[in-house]
């Protein structure tokens, strides 16, 4: 943003995370205990408590966010998803044709589900007593999800920045805070600048994985022990699969973090306040990697510490460049009436974390 010299400088308000690992440990371990004891039913309430902890400790301008979903809403959503999977499997065995139809129906429904899920997630989030909202339509989701997904898949990832651009324009241009709008127009050039390193990592990694895979297959040929080596075959597949997964994860992290920075820095709230993100790609990758290693070594007991660490880094490297007094935003929202009091009857759609 270029400002005239006489004009005020935008005031950067960085996020702040006030949670700590010790406190979250208790919440996390009790969530697990109750989830096991209730054979998974409590997981819906566990999600609410976890999210309320993280939202409630994420502060911008000394106010925190809040998460309003109810355990029952989430449970109903999950029951529907599980029921669909069960019915789908039963139908598939009775009549494969009908099963395939049901599967295709699911694919067609996907944009609608994504749209509902974005809306649900926006509406259960509030800041300073005002809820967010999402006004996107199914067709927009269809173009962004199916169209973008196809384009980036068919081009082996080369056109992925286009897909990212469509997706985030769909998400941010339909996001509302009270009656204020967000607008986002990430530049393709900027997206390609963050895409290139990720793609190079992917290419180099893929070459290494192919080498490892070839090695694994030859080592089986040399170490044949029994008449049936179905198991060793599986091991060989793992020899290729695990490195491939790791490469996807690594280049995925680099790309996602880069895209987040580009998209947030290209997003304007209420026509003048610019969002801000300056996550370090290598730093973030180091956090994810070391978190994973530490979690595994401690049999998962350090997972709460790792989650808090990752969250803190993300929040503290996000913020908003406030242009003009923030009170203006607040009072204009006040005049425009309430979006907060409404108790939304939405249920959780397809949760990506599920």
């Amino acid at each position: 943003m270029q400002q005239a010299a006489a004009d005020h400088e935008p005031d950067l308000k960085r996020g702040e995370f006030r949670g700590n690992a010790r406190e979250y440990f208790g919440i996390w371990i009790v969530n697990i205990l109750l989830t096991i004891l209730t054979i998974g039913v409590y997981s819906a309430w566990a999600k609410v408590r976890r999210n309320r902890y993280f939202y409630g400790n994420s502060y911008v301008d000394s106010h925190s966010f809040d998460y309003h979903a109810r355990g029952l809403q989430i449970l109903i959503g999950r029951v529907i998803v599980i029921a669909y999977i069960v019915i789908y499997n039963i139908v598939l065995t009775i009549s494969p044709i009908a099963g395939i139809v049901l599967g295709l129906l699911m694919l067609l429904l996907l944009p609608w589900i994504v749209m509902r899920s974005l809306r649900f997630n926006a509406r259960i989030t509030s800041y300073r007593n005002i809820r967010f909202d999402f006004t996107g339509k199914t067709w927009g989701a269809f173009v962004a999800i199916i169209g973008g997904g196809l384009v980036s898949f068919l081009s082996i990832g080369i056109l992925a920045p286009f897909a990212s651009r469509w997706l985030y324009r769909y998400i941010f241009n339909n996001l509302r805070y009270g009656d204020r709008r967000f607008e986002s127009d990430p530049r393709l050039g900027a997206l390609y600048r963050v895409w290139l390193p990720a793609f190079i990592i992917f290419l180099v990694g893929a070459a290494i994985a192919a080498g490892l895979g070839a090695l694994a297959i030859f080592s089986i040929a040399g170490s044949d022990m029994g008449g049936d080596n179905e198991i060793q075959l599986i091991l060989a597949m793992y020899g290729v699969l695990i490195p491939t997964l790791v490469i996807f994860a690594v280049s995925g992290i680099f790309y996602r973090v880069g895209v987040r920075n580009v998209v947030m820095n290209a997003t304007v709230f209420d026509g003048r306040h610019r969002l801000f993100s300056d996550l370090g790609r290598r730093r973030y990758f180091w956090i994810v990697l070391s978190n994973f290693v530490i979690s595994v070594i401690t049999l998962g007991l350090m997972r709460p510490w790792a989650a808090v660490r990752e969250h803190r880094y993300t929040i503290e490297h996000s913020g908003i460049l406030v242009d003009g007094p923030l009170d203006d935003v607040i009072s204009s929202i006040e005049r425009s009436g309430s979006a907060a009091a409404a108790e939304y009857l939405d249920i959780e759609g397809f949760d990506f974390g599920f």
Partner: protein
Amino acid sequence: MASDIRMIARGFWHPPGSSRAIPATLSGTGKTLFVSADGDSRDPLTMNDLIKVDISARIGSIPRRITFADGSMFETADNDAVDHWVRNHRRGGFVHELERFHPRLAVVVVGIILLAFGIYRYAVPAMVEIAVLVTPPAVTQWMASGTLLSLDQAVFSETELSLEKQQEILDGFAAVAAVSGRGPEGYNVNFRKGGAIGPNAFALPDGTLVITDELIALADGDMDMIIGVLAHEIGHVEREHSLRQLYRAAGTAGLIMLIAGDIGTAGEDILTNGAALVALSHSREAEHEADRISVELMHRAGRDPAAIGRFFEVIEAEFGLEGDSSFLSTHPGTAERRQAIADYASELKSSGAP
């Protein structure tokens, strides 16, 4: 009445549908809560009976939110004061009490470890048995044809075996399959040139068997050996070993997901795949079981029951492999297997009738 009014906590008050924050005080008298602006205690900003307000559940030390019927919201960091007042008027938060960082959390940790072990040891195997029972044949057929197709594309090429030789093996196999549970119609033997995987044979869950030219060459005309190996594969099919392994891996992965809760994306993939690998260690038992079935079937069909043992001898001589079974090896040591096979074969012979 003024004497009954007790100040509860200080914080901020947001007017209905507004993000404006007014420094305010929460007070209570009897079962009525009211909020007054700091410095002006006579005129309450809002008031409600306790039944009509929503007090957010306590989670860690995130700000407490008290929402009034008019949509306004009072926010305070003084959780203890709110708890103290709430406790005198209605039930407090049991879950939060459990979540507090306290020595008793150690009991929760130990309890979860015991529970997880119990589920892994008893509940997962039980679920696996049920899942195997209810899996319809259509699913195993679909799995098998998919596997064979991808192997044909990736590894195998067409057999170079003469048709007479093929027919000879098929006839010998049919006689052994006739005394098995499924009968000859339950199996479909395929000949392939093994390529990278060399001398090999394996079974797919629907009864599709594959044997490589290299293995047949290795047998060097010992027809009992070839049939013995195929009988071993019948054992895998009849006991549904591959299905069991698949379900066990899925069950273990599910258990990890349940416990880990929010384990993070990359971590989840790697941990659950690791669990699948560990589940493969069960296959040692499966190999022993298949060996025994081979001995039994060969005995009943009037062929040499110890023939499969000779196969391991050849393998050992050819590849010079020796070693005891360990946790990570999926196949038991060949010496151990040969001994078990020889023992069982002589036991069957001495017992007389087939």
